């Protein structure tokens, strides 16, 4: 077999395909997104589709498992909060076809709103759990997870982290094992979780976990490496790689693959052979607490702390292994390079217009590309916590502000994908509770932040099928808002957007603005505008800098004149053009 480089995400997709998976579902979220994206290459052998949120994605996979085929659902760590409801009870019912749940955690918060450690979910929800440490293991453990799921009648969780998902390493691949579907047999005692059945199933889950624990005691996936010296390190996932890098052959290792349930006897046996036990793990002291509960003296978290990602250097520093390498002094400060709204981004038009109304509004945001509007120069919103909340926080906030005589209008902002994800529920609450809020859907016709995944507003799905579009305005109107409380506006058109915001601020009750213009990076958009960009006439430019207030990355200012610094990326959207009182800017080409 050929050796190829694969990311952890690619390898999980490959492993699932080799294991004969028939249904794969997900909602995008870094660093898990590429798992389902990579399933699409196998679409002749399986069904794969983006869902609107992690809960529905999980339930679709559960349904497929119930129907007797192997199924997988993947999500980022916070997605598991959304999917927790079905997951906790899916452990009780167990599976028919193997069911694998992939949780991609993000220590270091590279692209997330928190650093939660989802290993605790496996413990809490009573799932089996495997933790791969590189791409080869991603492939192998995924295959194993399907086997174990069926063998022990448990949903199996694959827990990975950003560094595993987004690192590439050498992988040896195999072939697909086409598996005959298991018959679907009606069995309400097992699958209909009413109290009477659930009580019985809870007993069964614990038995299933006991059986998996016995298996984990001797299975070949857990590995022990003995070296000279007193130190024994227990770790799992990527932390093994970092620990190995830091301690080298000066310590022995128990590298756990099955991290729920934990193999107590194996752990005790390892610890009896070393003098000092260190637990090296990112996030919560998940392993450490469990191992301490076995009566074993060990440490690690006290030196490493719960925050951030580990690397070899951090471990060396924490355990006093040698001096840190010398580094060159920084001869000058590098100016910051934060990610920004792209040239031509429709979100910029909305935030620009909104600035004018600063004094009469309080804005709440959500998670998506438009989150970038939080910083300079727009300071577009003041709070955001999780997907969908951009439409429900305003309901509570508006009540609180009214109580203290604050007359500002509360505005909620979220994107099209976020609206389909959970924002619609919040909108229904707002309308039904007669909330005095303005809710804005920034509809760029794609799930942009995570890399352009299709959503229910797009007419093609992941497998390339033509699918019905679920129109946002239809959903909004279905909540019972009158026509005069809903505006659909092109955010680049500042006059129209200003008028819409003004109407929203002056109207009592719930008001919705759909700010609609496709993402400037969509292939179709790039094709349509080919060659079009703005041009600034140096003679006419008076250097007033009004255009630079749009904070467009294609626009620069030097020598008392504004100019288009990056015509290749300028889309000619014309936002800056509307700022110019001297007619110096025009759109050319295309």
């Amino acid at each position: 077999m050929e050796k190829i480089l694969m990311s952890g995400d690619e390898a999980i997709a490959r492993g699932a395909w080799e294991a004969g998976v028939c249904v794969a579902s997900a909602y995008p979220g870094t660093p898990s997104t590429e798992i389902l994206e990579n399933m699409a290459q196998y679409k002749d052998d399986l069904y794969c589709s983006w869902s609107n949120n992690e809960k529905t994605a999980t339930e679709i996979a559960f349904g497929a498992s119930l129907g007797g085929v192997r199924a997988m659902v993947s999500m980022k760590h916070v997605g598991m909060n959304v999917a927790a409801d079905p997951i906790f009870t899916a452990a009780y019912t167990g599976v028919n076809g193997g069911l694998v749940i992939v949780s991609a955690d993000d220590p270091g918060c590279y692209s997330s709103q928190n650093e939660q450690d989802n290993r605790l979910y496996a413990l809490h929800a009573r799932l089996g759990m495997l933790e791969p440490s590189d791409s080869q293991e991603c492939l192998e453990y995924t295959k194993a997870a399907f086997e174990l799921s069926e063998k022990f009648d448990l949903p199996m969780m694959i827990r990975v982290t950003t560094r595993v998902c987004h690192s590439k390493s050498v992988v040896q691949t195999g072939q697909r094992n086409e598996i005959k579907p298991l018959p679907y047999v009606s069995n309400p005692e097992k699958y209909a979780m009413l109290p009477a059945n659930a009580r019985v199933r809870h007993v069964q889950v614990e038995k299933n976990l006991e059986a998996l624990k016995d298996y984990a005691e001797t299975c070949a996936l857990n590995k022990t490496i003995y070296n000279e010296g007193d130190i024994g390190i227990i770790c799992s996932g990527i932390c093994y790689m970092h620990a190995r890098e830091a301690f080298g052959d000066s310590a022995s290792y128990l590298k756990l693959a099955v991290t729920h349930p934990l193999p107590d006897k194996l752990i005790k046996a390892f610890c009896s052979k070393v003098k000092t036990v260190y637990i090296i793990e990112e996030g919560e002291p998940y392993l450490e607490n469990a191992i301490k509960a076995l009566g074993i003296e060990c440490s690690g978290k006290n030196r490493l702390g719960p925050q951030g990602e580990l690397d070899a250097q951090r471990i060396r520093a924490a355990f006093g292994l040698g001096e840190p390498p010398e580094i060159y002094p920084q001869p000058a400060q590098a100016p910051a390079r934060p990610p920004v709204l792209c040239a031509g981004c429709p979100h910029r038009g909305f935030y620009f217009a909104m600035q004018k109304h600063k004094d009469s509004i309080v804005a709440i945001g959500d998670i998506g590309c438009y989150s970038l509007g939080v910083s300079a120069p727009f300071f577009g919103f003041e709070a955001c916590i999780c997907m969908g909340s951009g439409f429900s926080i305003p309901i509570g906030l508006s009540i609180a502000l009214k109580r203290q005589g604050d007359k500002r209008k509360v505005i909620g902002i979220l994107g099209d994908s976020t609206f389909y994800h959970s924002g619609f529920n919040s909108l229904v609450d707002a309308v039904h509770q007669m909330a005095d809020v303005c809710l804005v859907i920034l509809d760029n016709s794609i799930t942009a932040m995570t890399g352009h995944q299709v959503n229910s507003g797009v007419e093609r799905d992941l497998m390339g099928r033509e699918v019905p579009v679920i129109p946002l305005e239809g959903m909004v109107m279905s909540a019972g808002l009158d026509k005069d409380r809903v505006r659909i506006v092109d955010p680049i058109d500042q006059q129209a957007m200003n008028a819409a915001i003004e109407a929203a601020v002056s109207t009592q009750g719930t008001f919705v603005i759909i700010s609609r213009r496709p993402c400037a990076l969509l292939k179709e958009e790039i094709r349509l505008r080919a060659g079009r960009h703005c041009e600034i006439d140096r003679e006419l430019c008076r250097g007033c800098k009004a255009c630079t207030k749009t904070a467009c990355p294609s626009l620069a200012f030097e020598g008392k004149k504004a100019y288009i610094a990056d015509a290749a990326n300028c889309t000619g959207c014309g936002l800056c053009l509307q700022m110019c009182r001297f007619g110096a800017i025009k759109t050319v080409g295309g």
Partner: protein
Amino acid sequence: MTNILLTGVGGQGTILTTKILSAALVKLGYDVKMSEIHGMSQRGGTVNTQLRYGEKVYAPNISQGEADLIVAFEKVEALRALPYLKKGGTIVMDDREIYSMPVLIGAQEYPHNAVELLKETADSVIVIPASRIAEELGNIKVQNICLLGALAGTLELNGVDWNAIIAENVPAKTVSLNQEAFKRGRESALSV
């Protein structure tokens, strides 16, 4: 073990460059790991990829003071990545300037003398005019493959059919353009 850090601005093609280099290293029989944390990279932020190769690689990422080689696609990104350079390591960089938002809106200064500063500080800095070469060839986008050529020249990797690997990894229409960019970058590094 050799550690390489590639750094640039979203959209410059650092990830593709790392991918092609890794493919070549795998063909040479090395164990290779690369890390490419990408979240908001398309939106104009800094993009770092890290590549490690040798007989056996454990961790996929590089800590500060560990990079044998830094390849910078942009001037201040070279400056920013400097803490990662191992003492005595080499920086291969383009002298291209791309202004970030704080610079564009005048909130922060761009250090135009970054190359001189780096040359005064680090022991080995190789400047490759990759963007200019790419523009001469008619497409700024091949800057990355030009830098790859320079990198291949600096690493003295022998026995690699670079033209074939490039052909496997770039759009069909741009194969000869990219191959030419690679050649020019390599020559440029070897002439330093």
